[in-house]
């Protein structure tokens, strides 16, 4: 038997056919300590999943080596500071923020919700202090060129009026006996009381504005006077108010979210501090050969082709690169890899010489616009200091990204600045430095985040959740939640659980 396929290949095919129980995805990480001679692990790619794999496997006795193609580890966990190299293909450039530890920008992941238990666990274990990042501000703006004459509206106003108008409709519905089928008279009475509170309605069930949205008069010394309500029909013309109102309803964006103090890459540094395994930078994989008794990887380093032989391989390389890397993986497996699409997430950051948003009462949070820049983020940290870095554009759909990708660096910044001017008066005049990261143009990444082929998600993931021979695919790409560090960790944990199971069966 073994002479035909080798014991691992046999075992693996049994897994692939579902004939042997293997750990289900999402199980807590449990790796048995290394035993026997097969201890050499090669990890391709020093992103979050790769670093996590090295950290966990070396702790149970494996010898890991990380090969990283670019000049740095961390993958898309990239925080920009003064002088940092931005490795965009054809337009390499350097970050021109002032030299100040408070002036940084998270170009990839930027927020950690409380339910990302794996990531928060590592932050705690690795000694990465966090603070709360305000992901929402009711004093930030909702802006739509097609509504309200293009005038930016405070999000608090939008939320209050949305609730008011909807509550008024509920009251009208009850009065017109619209809910008689669903609700008893008692229930309807309770609904009337609740909707009156929810929308801050008058006793007659009419919405005439609320001081929840603000006051036209000085609130401390005088009676509050509700601000004028928006026009509900005008609101319905805009799609932007949905995102302004409901962004925080998204489970991953629900307040509060966290960020490491000093930049998201503190997590990368935390892993690096706690990993002893060698990490080879500028080592680009050229071929992966999976054999019965190990995995041979060739890579290019300082112009030379080098070879590393290992017992097992964890592969964190963006899947769409695999068609350009010679390998002997099976056609169904490489077809699954080739089906992954490149994402076009991008961010633009500006260094503002003055924290002008604070003078408008905005301390953190996000403004939303229907323009291509989509969002403006205000920093929560270092309030009332002189300068700040804010996000000046953020998007992930190709319609927004492609025009910006095609632009020269200066052109992008001017474009984003001119759209910011529509939201904040004199916005452009505060800009003194800027950077853009278009992930689809970033060397060695060429995309964020990986997309699963529509209609084939289950098939592709069920293939990649399992190893092929001694080769395990990892990274947020191998998940239902690409673009999040938590997904990268979940994928790495799943692969390591499978690995531990495989090794245990093999040694049994």
């Amino acid at each position: 038997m073994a002479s035909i396929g080798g014991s691992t290949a046999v075992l693996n095919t049994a897994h692939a056919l579902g004939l042997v129980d293997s750990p289900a995805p999402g199980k807590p990480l449990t790796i048995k300590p290394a035993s026997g001679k097969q201890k050499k692990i090669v990890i391709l790619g020093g992103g979050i999943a790769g670093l996590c794999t090295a950290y966990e496997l070396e702790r149970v006795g494996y010898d890991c080596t990380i090969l990283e193609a670019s000049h740095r580890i961390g993958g898309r966990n990239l925080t920009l500071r003064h002088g940092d190299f931005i490795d965009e293909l054809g337009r390499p450039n350097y970050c021109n923020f002032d030299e100040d530890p408070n002036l940084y920008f998270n170009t990839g992941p930027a927020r950690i919700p409380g339910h990302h238990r794996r990531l928060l666990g590592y932050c705690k274990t690795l000694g990465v202090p966090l603070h709360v990042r305000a992901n929402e501000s009711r004093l930030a703006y909702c802006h739509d060129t097609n509504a309200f004459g293009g005038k930016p509206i405070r999000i608090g106003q939008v939320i209050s009026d949305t609730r008011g108008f909807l509550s008024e409709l509920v009251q009208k519905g009850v009065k017109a006996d619209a809910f008689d089928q669903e609700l008893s008279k008692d229930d309807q009475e309770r609904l009337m009381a609740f909707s009156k509170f929810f929308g801050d309605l008058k006793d007659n069930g009419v919405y005439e504005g609320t001081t929840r949205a603000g006051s036209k008069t000085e609130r401390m010394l005088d009676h509050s006077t509700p601000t004028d309500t928006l026009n509900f029909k005008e609101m319905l013309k805009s799609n932007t108010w949905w995102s302004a109102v409901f962004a925080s309803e998204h489970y991953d964006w629900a307040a509060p979210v966290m960020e490491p103090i000093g930049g998201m890459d503190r997590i990368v540094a935390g892993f690096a501090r706690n990993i002893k395994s060698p990490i080879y930078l500028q080592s680009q994989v050229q071929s992966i050969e999976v054999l019965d008794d190990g995995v041979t990887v060739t890579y290019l380093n300082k112009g030379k082709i080098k070879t590393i032989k290992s017992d097992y391989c964890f592969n964190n390389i963006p899947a769409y690169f695999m068609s350009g890397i010679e390998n002997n993986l099976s056609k169904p497996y490489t077809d699954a890899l080739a089906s992954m699409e490149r994402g076009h997430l991008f961010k633009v950051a500006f260094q503002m010489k003055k924290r002008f948003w604070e003078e408008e009462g905005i301390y953190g949070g996000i403004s939303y616009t229907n323009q291509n820049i989509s969002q403006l983020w205000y920093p929560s940290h270092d309030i009332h200091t002189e300068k700040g870095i804010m996000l000046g554009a953020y998007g992930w759909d190709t319609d927004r990204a492609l025009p910006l990708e095609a632009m020269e660096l200066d052109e992008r910044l001017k474009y984003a600045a001119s759209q910011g001017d529509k939201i904040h008066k004199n916005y452009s005049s505060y800009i003194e430095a800027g950077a853009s990261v278009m992930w689809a143009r970033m060397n060695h990444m060429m995309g964020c985040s990986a997309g699963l082929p529509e209609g084939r998600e289950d098939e592709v993931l069920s293939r990649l959740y399992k190893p092929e021979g001694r080769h395990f695919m990892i990274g947020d790409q191998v998940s239902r939640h690409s673009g999040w560090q938590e997904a990268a960790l979940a994928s790495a944990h799943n692969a390591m659980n499978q690995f531990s199971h495989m090794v245990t069966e093999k040694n049994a």
Partner: protein
Amino acid sequence: MKNSIFVVVSIIVTSWVSLAKAEPFKDVPEKYRVCTVCHGAQLRGNEVTKAPTLATLPAWYIENQLIGFRNEWRGKHPEDYPGSEMYPVAESLSEKEISKVSKFIEALPKSNKHTQIVKGDSAKGKELYATCAACHGADAQGNEVLSAPPLLVQGDWYIKQQLLNFKNGLRGKVSDDARGATMAAAITSLNSDSDIDDIVAYLSTL
């Protein structure tokens, strides 16, 4: 019981196919490593990143194309996304760098990784190819004097894409691009996209 399952399974398992059949890898100077990100190891192409095979293309053709990108003859049409990805890279190269990298590419080992993706009627394609042969040669090996590149180096997906680009005005339509214009004029002899598939299918038989 468990053992019996293994017996059944092992019958359909075959040994890993060795990579030894592939051409050996050649060292790549650090400054050209950037090309391999999209164009793949040894510049043998990557159909997923839509980056063509470059290895063994003649230096004169690579040079023409890099200059073509730099002159905005390629890569500026809004519907040509892969072209737009190449444009800033070509634009960042000096003439000296273009000349050097072109010679490097020509001398790389030949790729033998291509598999047939495009399906068509190769017999019909053979007839249609007669027009192409005038410049590209009956053996599709290309002709430097006529600036016609060899066609067998590429994966069939790329040849198809470029023929569609010429047909749909994404390539060969910028004034000054005389070579591109020649090809854009030649493509008008094809009546349909299936003609393109047929020609590409024929090339796969050569």
